[in-house]
């Protein structure tokens, strides 16, 4: 989109720099990044640790724990568990901490709270 024909929506005349500098938006961005960045680093480290172990620590991974089930299989299945767990955690975090504040900002903007000059317009709500 960008330079394409502008979308005919309420956001077309919004001063986004103004919105970007509001405390509310800064808070939303902080909450989003402080969750997704550490989590992304964590699961990537955990995944590569697993790949490295399978690649270079074959003896350790082949240690039998219970019947024919070895450490490699357990760690592999734990990758599934951690993926499901992070998914669930992110969904509940978004629902509680991100969605409400994003919806608030959206309602304010789409109700034309700010004009091009960054002045707050009151009384216009959607």
């Amino acid at each position, binding site marked *: *989109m*960008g*330079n*394409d*024909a502008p*979308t005919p*929506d*309420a*956001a*077309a005349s*919004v001063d*986004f*720099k103004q*919105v*970007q500098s509001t405390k509310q*938006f800064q808070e*939303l*961005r902080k909450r*989003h*990044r402080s969750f*997704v960045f550490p*989590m*992304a680093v964590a*699961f*990537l480290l955990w*995944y*590569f640790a*697993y*790949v*490295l172990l*399978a*690649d*270079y620590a*074959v003896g350790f*991974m*082949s240690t039998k724990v*219970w*019947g*024919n*089930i*070895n450490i*490699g*299989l357990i760690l*592999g299945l734990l*990758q*599934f568990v951690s*993926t*499901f767990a*992070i*998914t669930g955690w*992110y*969904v509940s975090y*978004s629902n509680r901490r991100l*969605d409400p504040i*994003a919806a608030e*900002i*959206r309602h304010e*903007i*789409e109700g034309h709270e700010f004009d091009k000059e960054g002045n707050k317009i009151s009384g216009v709500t959607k």
Partner: protein
Amino acid sequence: MTLMIPAAVDVADLKETTLLNMGIFGLFVAVTMIIVIKASRNNKTAADYYAAGRSFTGPQNGTAIAGDYLSAASFLGITGAIAINGYDGFMYSIGFLVAWLVALLLVAELLRNTGKFTMADVLSFRLKQRPVRIAAAISTLAVCFFYLLAQMAGAGSLISLLLGISDWGGQALVIIVVGALMIMYVLIGGMKGTTWVQIIKAMLLIAGAAVMTFWVLAIYGFNLSDLLGGAVETSGNPNVLNPGLQYGKTETSKLDFMSLGLALVLGTAALPHVLMRFYTVPTAKEARKSVVWSIWLIGLFYLFTLVLGYGAAALVGADTIKAAPGGVNSAAPLLAFHLGGPLLLGFISAVAFATILAVVAGLTITAAASFAHDIYASVIAKGKADADTEVKVARRTVVVIGLLAIAGGIFANGQNVAFLVALAFAVAASANLPTIVYSLFWRKFTTQGAIWSMYGGLGSAIILIALSPVVSGAKTSMIPGANFAIFPLSNPGIVSIPLAFFLGWLGSVLDKKLEDTTKQAEMEVRSLTGVGAEKAVDH
């Protein structure tokens, strides 16, 4: 029900089931075609054609994503890899699944909020339109083409097993039929029709795999340890349970596995046909729900393949699988035949065909949308084309891509196809992911950074593949006679992905031109809040 188990799988018996396979597959085509025609009645606008009117729910789209993602390479390839190489095959599934967290945390919702139809919409949002859009469209087309070629070539080799057609002409004919059907689906149904095909196929595939998994587990008294013991017993090699059977041979092959792992985990969230699916839902929240659904379905499915792979190793045996027409890929169909006889084999074979058909359709509509929307409408017609013309161009592109895929599939038939899928992932991770991440999260990212990163990533991935043992210098190479393999790894990701990230950073800090900070603010606000995001089409 008694568990009737034939003593051994006789490969010659498989041909007798050809008619049954064709019948079940024909039924699938007929049913989906009716649904596609019904779904297409509401196709009026560009948003209808490319993004299904943004009217699918999260769970529906999540199922369709699973349908798009669980290609024949996943189902037949991973089951076969586990049956033959044991634990190393299982590690593919883990990379393919964990990769979805990148899509969930970093890409899906932000992309849904800022784009319209294609990946290039997001990448060129706050940078210079023309150069970035062209680069994004070229890498979209490249990834789709490699992926498409792999699926079409896979169709050819599958046929030798499933339909008992082993001569070259017969296989070419089947590739033509698959291509022609795919063109019809996409022309008539657009994204809506394609999505329904994906949904039906995903449900059939997961249901089929679930039945077989339950059956295998029942044979071993629902004891995973006994099943693993059975695999060891049949193969006579206790190492099938340990890592390293395939990739642990040399230091080079170990490094190759790291490289593959990197491409798998970073490639998924940059596959254009997966990204495009996020536009078929009405909001970012539904995009999130889609990813959550697909993670559960895909994770469940990969757990099934663990049981199926070791089940095939235990009940059919690696030697029988390798000797069968279709080789490694025949593990799942042979296991189906062993368990449920011709009827289950027919069902699983039809599902495998449906899988290829659906994935190919999804790739084709992505490539056509990228050409019509990014190259034709924005670059050739300079934004002056109306939506009707754009859709018309997209439809023509579908036919062209379909014909190219048929020709490429016939040409690539019998080639080493696994590397084409790996190449598609490596190219996506190198050419697309750095620019997606930078443009969403790094304020100082510039047009020059995007161009360097995308062309650098695309170029280095393709050049390294061309200079690798998959193309020359080994018995299994595409050109076994020649040797110009100066790059020792089969997977370029470990070099090309960091290089593309570095080039994106370098190009940006060296760029003297400043980017529009207003556009950056707009993109950031839109991506996180969903302000002004494309709405669902109201019918």
